[in-house]
């Protein structure tokens, strides 16, 4: 490798995942870098199509060979994974890193009981008898809060409710004590009360196992309490990165303001969003020139034409808080303090 192994538990360096298609090259992830330590939680937020799932599948090495062009570096506990052999990355999956998928119904095999699927996951990495693995499966189901786990272990996924299914999915992902856990929209398919329970559960389990956790969502509300750090993605790139406090109390990117403004809140009707982001997510084939957000950005006119001609760099504004925008720092802060914040608080 060109660069020495980093000290961070997980570090992505300039990760690019591109898909050649008939219509052109889809740049789903385009130069993504971040670090994550054990015991910490990173929230990745962005609209549909911003490249969140492609990123997480990329970390687990799940992109089918040949279809995706992957470059950059993924360092996990001192090992680089992009250049590693498929077989080696496979031995890490499940044990070193695991994933919770968005839709637990379609993500669990319909023909096998929940127990069989957890047992299978456990026995890949542990040379134990079926009986021992079954005890472990019952144990895990109990730990994620499934009542009567010794009975439910023999149920099929379709016999579970949505929330219970997601718990079972979590039990399966955690069955080998993974050190890195990626949850891709873990609660999107669930109703609000169950969402909160599942998020609490994940937080508890993360503390217990001291694992590094990545929570992917399009809903800032989900990561608000959960995350130490938050990465906002737009068009395959990071456009703002900082601590949860940075993102919620000192956000500096117009897109993040938009996300905050369109956050559903319990005290408001879901349809009555304060400041929805106009327009649609950018094409990943013909990315808008300059700043990818410029066609939708209310402040694009204030950057002396640079918004459409020059790609803004991801620059540090203060103490690890990174922003990708041409607006001068003082102007951004001024807009936030004087225009956006009062509007959000006014509600």
């Amino acid at each position, binding site marked *: 490798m060109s660069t020495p192994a980093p000290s961070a538990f997980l570090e992505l360096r300039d990760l690019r995942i591109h898909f050649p298609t008939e219509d052109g090259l889809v740049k789903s992830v385009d130069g993504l870098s971040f670090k994550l330590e054990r015991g910490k939680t990173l929230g990745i937020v962005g609209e549909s199509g911003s490249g969140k799932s492609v990123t997480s*599948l990329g970390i*687990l090495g*799940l992109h089918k060979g040949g279809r995706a062009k992957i470059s950059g570096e993924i360092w996990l506990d001192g090992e680089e994974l992009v250049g590693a052999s498929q077989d080696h990355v*496979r*031995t*890490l*999956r*499940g*044990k070193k890193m*695991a*994933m919770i*998928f968005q*839709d637990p119904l*379609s*993500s*669990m*095999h*319909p*023909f096998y009981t929940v127990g069989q699927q957890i047992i*299978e*996951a456990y026995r*890949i*990495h542990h040379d134990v008898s079926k009986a021992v693995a079954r005890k472990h499966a019952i144990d895990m189901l109990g730990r994620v809060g499934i009542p009567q786990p010794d009975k439910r272990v023999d149920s*099929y996924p*379709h016999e579970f409710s949505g929330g219970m299914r997601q718990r079972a999915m979590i039990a*399966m992902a955690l069955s080998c004590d993974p050190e890195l856990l990626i949850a891709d929209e873990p609660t999107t398919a669930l109703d609000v009360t169950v969402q909160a329970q599942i998020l609490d559960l994940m937080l508890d389990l993360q503390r217990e196992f001291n694992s590094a956790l990545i929570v992917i969502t399009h809903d800032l509300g989900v990561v608000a309490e959960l995350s130490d750090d938050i990465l906002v993605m737009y068009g395959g790139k990071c456009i703002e990165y900082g601590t949860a406090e940075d993102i919620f109390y000192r956000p500096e990117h117009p897109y993040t303001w938009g996300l905050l403004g369109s956050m559903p809140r319990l005290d408001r009707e879901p349809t009555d969003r304060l400041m929805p982001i106009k327009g649609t997510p950018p094409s990943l084939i013909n990315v808008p020139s300059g700043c990818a957000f410029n066609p939708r950005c209310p402040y694009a006119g204030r950057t002396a034409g640079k918004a459409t001609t020059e790609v803004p760099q991801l620059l540090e504004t203060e103490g690890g808080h990174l922003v990708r925008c041409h607006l001068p720092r003082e102007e951004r802060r001024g807009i936030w303090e004087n225009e956006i914040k009062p509007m959000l608080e006014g509600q």
Partner: protein
Amino acid sequence: MLGFVARRLALLVPILLGLSVLLFLWVRALPGGPAEALLGERATPEAVARVKKLYGLDRPWYEQYLTWVGNVFRGDLGVSSRTQHPVVEELLRTFPATVELALVAMVFAVGAGVPLGYLAARRHGTWIDHVSVAGSLFGITIPVFFLGYMLKFVFAEKLGLLPTDGRQDPLLDAGHPTGFYVLDGLVTGNMEAFGDALAHLVLPGVALGTIPLAIVVRITRASVLDVLHEDYVRTAEAKGLAPATIRGRHVLRNALLPVVTVVGLQVGLLLGGAVLTETVFAFPGFGKFMADSIVARDYAVLQGFILFTAVIFVLVNLLVDVAYGLIDPRVRVT
């Protein structure tokens, strides 16, 4: 499960009753009748009337029908006007032949079709895929009798590798206690007869199995392609399962579901007899016998055989549904 099977079997009763009435009327609506067919064109009206009386055809149809139904319940399907043998006897003679033929055809179709379809899906978009898609199209369009004659010409007549026709070499001293000749060879310990019966099944089996083979290839390919993109396959990969395990345990089992349906349907069709194949290979089976019976207006045989085919069809479909439940817990019936 048992209740489900019982309910389905009970459903057979109204189906068969309705079918039997239609059947009864249909054979009688065919132009001509058994008497005319037996006696030829120049038969005198008196002779025709005599034969009709002999078979009870002079009575009103509903009377004939009730007599027939009553006999059917006692296991008597009547006597063939063409061969003068009891229909049950003809059934027991020809049906085992067709069962053997259909089984060989299906073993060929599934045994070759599932691996080929699977391979095509795994190598999606490569020449292997294109060849199997084109090949299966060819298999569906090629006329069965043409294929049969070609096979017979090349492998039996030119190369002399396999017998040209029939079920068994007449010069062999083979006993037939069950009517299933392959089985008979085993039962009587006559391995020569066993091998000979099997050899007689190869060419007609391949000819008959080619269309089902092509269908099975296409269905397997399509369903494997579907399943490969399922979320649960990605989950299996995320667990760190080895690719071979994923293919066997997570892909193939699901992909076989549509195949089971198609195979069931095809078995039903094949058991109804394969007139063309049986004709080309002079194979004394169910289909050929029925075709000859239509020509002879052999009412008793037509009624008995078609009714029997209906029963078989329902049973095979029931078997498919039970198999479905065994494979997929979501449709498990109670």
